[in-house]
């Protein structure tokens, strides 16, 4: 084999373990889900193989699914916005800090060491009727009875922000850290105020990171089902909860498959839009 041929083959050899893993763990199960979505659930709970469009017809035409999907997208959008507003200053401080950057990044990663479910449930001890905040308010005499802070849409968004904020900060940080600070110095030396320098130099250059963080926060937020179960009230279900219920509670795997593919299609379209305008490179940097 010639050197050129060997070199041409090398990338495929190096990529093959990852490609095998992606094929076996992602594409093959996805193909199963596609097939399942055309099956039917019988009255006993068993599946009837075949090619039926019933699940797709129901998923696409029923207003119930559309409304929950829109509500899910709304919650994910609010969460993303809150994460961006809270995450940008934090990322800026980390990127511009000198000496203690590693410590700050370590602190940012600390929440990942604790289970997401435990972190979500911890809000019950903070916001609950006998949680830390209500206990403190009643002890200080500010209120006589506990304030209802849990089991509503706001507590779901709070839980999601808690979960997703580190992803947003990391992406913005990567973007800010890559900006050549001499550009900011140049703007200042030409008479721009610090605020104007930020608005016209720093912010535009960090937008890809902000967009990457936003995309991640939105996609992960829209796909969650634990947070609404733990922190949501009766009417705060998100689309992933419908998938969970169809598959687990109703044992209707075919309908659950159609619903999960519907969510996948909506979120996939968003990723494609992002890729079209900004490219996936920035996202990969943030994830790395």
């Amino acid at each position: 084999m010639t050197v050129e041929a060997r070199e041409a083959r090398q990338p495929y050899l190096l990529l093959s373990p990852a490609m095998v893993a992606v094929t076996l763990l992602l594409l093959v199960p996805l193909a199963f889900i596609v097939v399942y979505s055309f099956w039917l659930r019988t009255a006993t709970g068993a599946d009837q193989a075949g090619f039926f469009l019933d699940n797709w017809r129901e998923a696409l035409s029923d207003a119930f699914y559309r409304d929950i999907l829109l509500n899910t997208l709304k919650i994910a959008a609010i969460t993303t916005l809150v994460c961006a507003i809270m995450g940008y200053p934090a990322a800026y401080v980390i990127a511009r800090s000198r000496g203690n950057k590693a410590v700050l990044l370590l602190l940012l990663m600390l929440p990942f060491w604790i289970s997401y479910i435990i972190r979500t449930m911890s809000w019950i001890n903070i916001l609950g009727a006998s949680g830390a905040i209500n206990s403190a308010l009643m002890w200080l005499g500010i209120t006589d009875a506990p304030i209802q802070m849990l089991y509503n849409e706001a507590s779901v968004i709070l839980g999601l922000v808690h979960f997703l904020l580190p992803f947003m900060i990391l992406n913005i940080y990567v973007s800010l850290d890559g900006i050549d600070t001499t550009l900011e110095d140049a703007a200042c030396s030409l008479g721009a105020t610090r605020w104007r320098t930020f608005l016209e130099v720093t912010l535009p250059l960090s937008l890809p990171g902000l967009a990457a963080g936003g995309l991640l926060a939105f996609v992960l937020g829209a796909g969650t089902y634990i947070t609404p179960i733990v922190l949501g009230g009766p009417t705060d279900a998100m689309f992933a909860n419908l998938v969970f219920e169809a598959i687990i509670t109703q044992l209707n795997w075919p309908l659950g498959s159609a619903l999960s593919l519907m969510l996948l299609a909506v979120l996939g379209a968003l990723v494609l839009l992002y890729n079209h305008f900004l490219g996936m490179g920035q996202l990969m940097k943030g994830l790395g």
Partner: protein
Amino acid sequence: MDNTKRYERLRERYMNGGIDRRSFLGLIGAAGLAYGVQTPFARGALAAAEQVRFDGWGGVVSEAFRKHAFDPYTEKTGITVVDGTFGGGDEYLSRVKASQPGEYNIAHLSGVFDYARYHNLGLSSTLNEDNIPNLKYVIPKLTDVFRKVTGGTLSCVPYDYGTTGIAYNRKHISDEEMKEKGANILLDERFKGKIAGWSDWRTRIWYASLQTGQDPNGATDMDAIWEAVRAHRDLLLKYWSSGAELMSLLAEEEIYVTEAWSGRVYALQEQGHDIGYMDPPNGFGWQECLFVMKGSPMEPCEELLNFMLAPETSIAVAEGQNYPPALDPTKVDLGKKIPTLPAFDPTGKLDGLTFADPAYWNGNEQEWSKLFGRIQKGY
């Protein structure tokens, strides 16, 4: 010859120049692939003689099983019991459906309707009752209903029974008020935001039947039922989905009233919480069984069931999980604590409990579970 020896011989041949590098790496790769492919399928068979998997409801129930049944059983037989948990029969059924035969062995199922569902899906086994002599201590009525479903044979042994009644915080609701209002307390506007409910569609429909004055095993006005389910939802703080969550909501006083599992309320009372419990007329009675899945190693499973039905084990577990055992009190002395447990019937006839009719509930399961899922979310 074991795999290590095979590898050592192959490596020696390679080092001695007996085979080239490409062949050596190819053989190692093929062996790895073969191991990877066969392991998931062989795991069940290899483990069969050494362990039995048991799945139950978690929390205090699992603790009682572990302490009073599994650990002593392992000590006696050398067979390990791997215990997992689930939040409900539906969730567990979904897991079993996705598994290989033999992966799941014994489940602590609730209700004859679950037994019938599992049987209808082809998941039942046939127990050799000669290997379970302690079955003679069990209340006959509990065994008979299972036999009817599986044509005279058994795929389970009855283990305990209890009720889903109403738990209430005595600081805010008196015993007299509970007696007066019964199931309708769950629709009392005065407690809006302080009411909870189990996210189980059967329980919701059962209680809506009581609230609308209908037979829980034969409602005729389903519109009224769904209206009651909606009315309850609109007063709700949240639907709970596990025993641990139920206990937390009551203990933390997030809620004042909810339906609840009798044993969990007893556990809260033991912890010193002032929580009352009552079964309204026609309250939801259920029995739980230890169901053996098709494809399980039958003899170790039967041995475990027999061990668990031994009066000393069964009584210890019952005292730990706070549900009366399936043992017939006219045949076995159940000690001092069990007669004080909620739902306990000293006659062993269980005439005071209303159980779910499996044909009625399973016949409507597909439609009602789906509709409840929508109403639960505000529709």
